[in-house]
């Protein structure tokens, strides 16, 4: 055990000795969380809309002013001529263009149905669709005759940080555990210090433990740190039991450390380790549900997502933080995470031993 302790201490010291690394590990994630928490949202805002308008068309003016009041639109050009329409769209001056019939909408009042056109720049799909929905809801103002009353649970104000913070935490922590473990082992390989360790009485599993325990602990500290910052700055709730989250986080860290070690057994040098880490990270992030919902992906990718530790932990985190933690869901995802962690870590150990 002494041997292991010595190793763990050496590893921790090596990691934290470089002050830049310490800043990168503990300072930068908080800045990142703040940036991403404030900046990113799924909500479509500030849509630049133009109205082609005939000066005495009061109705179109009314729509424009409603659009402006709604907060989703920036009414950037009112009264451009129709021939400029395409140009202003292709230059990106406006993203949406409302073209009323040439006589103006007011003319048709009491004379039947008026046909107006809405041109949308669909290069950004999400914005185009958002613009259409918002504008339609403005034009067909709500009536009293039959409404659907929407009650939003867990996040009634639709604060995007509530959803983003648990996800971004996972991403940040995942990046550094995988990259740091894989690179630190590959570095020892590159320098030949791994051989030196082998002639010492230390056992292979002790090397792995010594390599992963410091990062495991740093990871736990980091997760708690970032979550607390999220709770303080963004008022992200923590509604579920802390122990549940801690368990999930621990198993998640074991799984990612397993991935890191696995990569290091495959890589010859640090550059390869890094590329390997990236090959895992990029798909893992896209298939995690942080950015786009998984239920919307093709079946085979949904199946693949179940092999993604990130997906399980992101789902768990959101569930525990926002919804108070459902025991059923916890066992489902915690179980999968545990299986993954055991599989990844034991494969890593097996390969590591074989490599020696």
């Amino acid at each position: 055990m002494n041997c292991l302790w010595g190793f763990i201490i050496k590893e921790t010291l090596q990691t934290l000795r470089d002050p830049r690394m310490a800043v990168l590990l503990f300072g930068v994630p908080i800045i990142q969380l703040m940036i991403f928490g404030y900046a990113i949202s799924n909500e479509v805002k500030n849509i630049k809309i133009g109205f082609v308008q005939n000066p005495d068309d009061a109705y179109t003016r009314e729509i424009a002013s409603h659009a402006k009041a709604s907060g989703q639109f920036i009414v950037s050009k009112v009264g451009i001529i129709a021939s400029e329409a395409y140009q202003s769209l292709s230059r990106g001056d406006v993203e949406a263009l409302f073209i009323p019939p040439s006589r103006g909408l007011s003319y048709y009042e009491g004379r039947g149905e008026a046909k107006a056109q809405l041109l949308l720049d669909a290069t950004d799909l999400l914005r185009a669709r958002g613009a259409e929905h918002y504008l339609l809801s403005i034009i067909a103002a709500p009536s009293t005759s039959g409404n659907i009353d929407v009650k939003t649970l867990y996040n009634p104000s639709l604060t995007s940080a509530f959803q983003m913070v648990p996800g971004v935490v996972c991403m940040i922590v995942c990046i550094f555990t995988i990259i740091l473990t894989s690179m630190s082992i590959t570095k020892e390989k590159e320098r030949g210090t791994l051989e030196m360790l082998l002639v010492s009485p230390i056992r292979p599993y002790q090397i792995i433990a010594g390599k992963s325990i410091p990062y495991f602990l740093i990871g736990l500290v980091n997760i708690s740190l970032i979550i607390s910052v999220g709770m303080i700055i963004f008022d992200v709730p923590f509604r579920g039991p802390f122990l549940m989250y801690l368990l999930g986080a621990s198993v998640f860290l074991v799984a990612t450390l397993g991935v890191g070690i696995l990569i290091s057994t495959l890589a010859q040098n640090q550059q390869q380790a890094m590329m390997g880490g990236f090959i895992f990270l990029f798909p893992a992030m896209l298939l995690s549900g942080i950015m786009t919902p998984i239920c919307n992906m093709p079946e085979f990718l949904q199946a693949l997502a179940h092999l993604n530790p990130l997906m399980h932990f992101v789902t768990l985190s959101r569930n525990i933080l926002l919804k108070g933690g459902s025991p059923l869901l916890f066992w489902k995802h915690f179980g999968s995470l545990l299986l993954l962690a055991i599989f990844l870590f034991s494969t890593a150990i097996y390969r590591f031993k074989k490599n020696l």
Partner: protein
Amino acid sequence: MNLGRMRAIAFKEATHIRRDPFTLIMAIIMPVFLVVLFGLALDLDVKNIKIGIDDRDQSYSSRRLISLFHESRSFIIAKQGHWSDAEREIRDENISAILVIPHDFEKKIKKGEAPLIQFVADGSDNAILGPALSYLYGIQLQMRQQLIETSFQPKVKIETRYLYNGELKSSYFIVPGLMSVVLAIVSILLTALTISREWENGSMELLLSTPTNPLELILGKILPYSIIGMLAVLLVYLTARLGFDIPFRGNHLFFLLACFLFLTAYLAQGTVISIVARSQAVAMQMAMVSGFLPTMLLSGFIFSISSMPPFFQYFTMILPARWFLQIVRTLFLKEAGFMEIWSPLLALLLINLVLVNVARKKFKRTLE
């Protein structure tokens, strides 16, 4: 500045790359692989939102309302029944929302009163909730027209035309975006380690004892990687055009120029990182922090920049990926000429100049 020495460094770097085929394959094949995978995977048209329906009326009208949800194809009715604790189903994540039709639904319609239907939704994932609410709005309109006031006529009928992506294909939106994200990451990762590696193994000392100057070293290091990057661009372009059938409506020359500027910008950023870091592990972390995450989340790839608070809109201006993404989307989908893309091109050029200069300044010709 001496071209011969720059070439020598470029050649040496190219030999390193050649001797390490893993990296080379990664750099060229991986972008294509990722673009294919995620071109297929990311469908922003949210469909199949699972809902539960609690029909307490069990009448003709309520069944018609349910069929409206059914026909919309945006929702999947996963469960029907009566729940005493509806929230629990949502907490267990079996369904994303529950529609509760009150027992007096049909009665109220017949009386001419406004019925009130409740839609209890899961607010924990805005990416699902946002689209769900807009679909819900459409259904609400239909409900009014078909069930309640059959005489109801909207005053204005709006015909919507989606320009540039008429069928609203997600791949048109995602693939050009992915292209920039993937290339950004590969190029930044490739270079981030090259100079820090020379510091780490001590060869920098030897290089410094020769007449080589920083600019030669930096450009010599960037050159081979930009060739690899351009190759990757070509493959990704072909994948986008042939594999995903995405049109290219702009000018190829501008595209090439933009790709080149974009790659060199990120290669230069990688170089700055590797100069500042001096150890590969630190360089890697910096690359991830300053390259990977912002490029993925702040470049407008999925989360649009115009929706961000003003401060962050300005902040994204320092990201080359933001400008490249704008150029790529414009060139692929719009019939754009120079007028449409000169400003992002200029921005890329400026970023390039700044980064190469920072690299040159930061690069100390002496040891510390």
